[in-house]
């Protein structure tokens, strides 16, 4: 069974059966779990590159008095919620496109972190 293949690409019932067996194997499960972690790290780092100044608000809240801290946290919390929502959507999208329903080969990490242009 070729890695990188999806179930609909298997023309015969025999191939589909082999695909399902391979997809549920412990190795493939471990690779999918690793893929989720890697995608999370990748999207978090990419997001941080642009959003880290927002977290200065958290630092400011830590270093300032109670009233100021509340104001900073009020500004920070929506930003944090939105950035987490964007992060989750990015991870989910990439998981759906690159991981879910695919047999992951040995070099899948490179493909996940540096995908070829569509």
């Amino acid at each position, binding site marked *: 069974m070729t890695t990188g293949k999806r179930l609909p690409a298997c023309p015969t019932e025999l191939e589909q059966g082999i695909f399902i067996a391979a997809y549920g194997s412990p190795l493939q499960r471990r690779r999918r779990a690793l893929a989720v972690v890697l995608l999370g790290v990748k999207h978090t780092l990419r997001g941080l590159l642009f959003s*880290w100044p927002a977290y200065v608000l958290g630092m400011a809240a830590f270093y300032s008095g109670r009233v100021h801290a509340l104001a900073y946290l009020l500004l920070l919390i929506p930003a944090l919620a939105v950035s987490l929502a964007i992060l989750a959507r990015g991870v989910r999208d990439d998981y759906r496109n690159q991981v879910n329903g695919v047999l992951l080969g040995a070099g899948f990490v490179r493909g996940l972190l540096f995908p070829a242009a569509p």
Partner: protein
Amino acid sequence: MFQIRPEERPYAWLPDAAHPETNRYGKPIELIGADDPLAGKSLRINGNHGVGDNPNRYKQHGFYFNADNCIACHACEAACSEKNDLPAHIAFRSVGYLEGGSYPSSTRMNISMACNHCDNPVCLKGCPTRAYTKFAEYGAALQDPDICFGCGYCTWVCPYNAPQLDMKAGHVSKCNMCVDRLEVGLKPACASACLAGALDFGVIETMPDNREMLDAQIPGFPTPEITHPNIRFQQAKSLPREMRRTDSMPLRYERDDATKTYRPKVAEDGRPRAWNLKKLRSREDPLVVFTLVSQLVVGAFLLLFLGEKLGIAALAPAAHPVLHATLLIALLGFETIALVLSTLHLGRPHRFYRAFNNLRYSPVSREVAAIAVFYNLLGGYTLFTALSGAFAWLPAGWVQGIGQACGWGAVVAGPAALYFMSRIYRIPARPFWDHWQVLTSFYGNMLTLGALAVALPYGWMLWAQGGSSGTLLAPLAGFIALGLLLEGVGLVFHVRHLQKTGGEGAAAHYLQRTDFGYAWIARNVGMIAGLAGALTLAATGFDGMFAWSALAAVVVASALAGRALFYVLVIPTTMPGAFFWRNKGFEEHARTTGLANLPQVGVLPCTH
């Protein structure tokens, strides 16, 4: 490869006609030579690695539209939608109408229009994600919806309304020239489906059989000089001197006897002046907030950083360290909110990082990059000045040096970001925006809102402490007056320019004077009152904070109204719409009455 039907009719096949070497704009029709590395490569349509055997594969192709024959049956639209499996609210091709004369000698001219796969594809240059590619194969300008993140900028820059922003799917898609059909020698689905012999397709500058004209323009078609579109026309039947649109745009087309072309003019219909405050809300609301807040933050930061150097001693960080630090952190918070709003404005916010993909051509990419640099530098400056206590483990000189370096970087990046922001709106296909007034307005707001954002907290704090703030507030009032003056001068020249040039820009100004007339007047009165107030405060050094708060309310309300008008008024140089389809008036009606809830109406109930 595309499956050819056994009963395919002769008219569906592409002709192999002789053509000139170059098109009317001087560009070679043969796009690449036989020995070019691009030659013989597969287009990999739907994963198929086959290479088509069309002998004219590397020649620029285009549509041919015979307006004399079009009966507006919409078969081309239907064929396109079926071929591309489009939802009801999206159409890559659409038929619009122009009417002229009066009963019984009234005339209607129908225009079927899709993407013209231009020689100068402004969509490709404008797209920040590089979702567009101009292919050597057939000269097709193709767009990849998987790369697109749904900012919709291509829909702004295209003069023909070809790219379609699907609010539901969160991305743009457009005519793909049916390249799969071309690969096997068939015309696109729309041209093959035309009942009346109006729509045809082939190598550009070749004339279909039994046709006599190869024009680049017909009435209602935007000037081809913007993009050099690959479409040619026949329109031989005589038309009245004046043609009117059937959609809700206040535009008509008048024949210029010298050039024999039709030019867009304002169709003044005596509509009354109104407020229409509710209609000031639009899909671009997040951009209203994003642009204004970014301008405020840049202006306020410049004052906080340069204030002491400009002689305003009270703005020195050491003069009021707590307030200075608090303001910097608050500015960071406001810019965060602005950036979040602009990101959520995208169809696919989680793909925001693709905005940097086209720094070479796209003003959107440059603006986003410059704003990101400013935001990061502002964050750095805030961190190393307002929260310098967190870096006690670093040598003091380092903390101050890094902070100053970030500050000076932000001083350059902020105004540069606003400049790139203004470049986004210099779009020939949107004449109302295409004027230097955008820049004066953005810089004007930077001065006005920035000075207010500094003046109010400082003024109220000093008032609470019982001190005098006149020496601080007077120069800030001067900045406010300067900003309002800059914006006002730009607006005066803008209106004069619109009245002089006519067309879609003047039509937008007509809407400004009528549908939004009272809102426009109120904004102008607010600006004048704000200018008078700011000049008075600057001259007298008056530090009454209730007067300052009133000035702020007037100036902010004017800025909000002005920016909302800027977005809702623009009339693009698009093709005329029909009675229902591609008619903004009908879309509004459908949303108000609930018709839009029926999917077959083809209008999405919500545009946000």
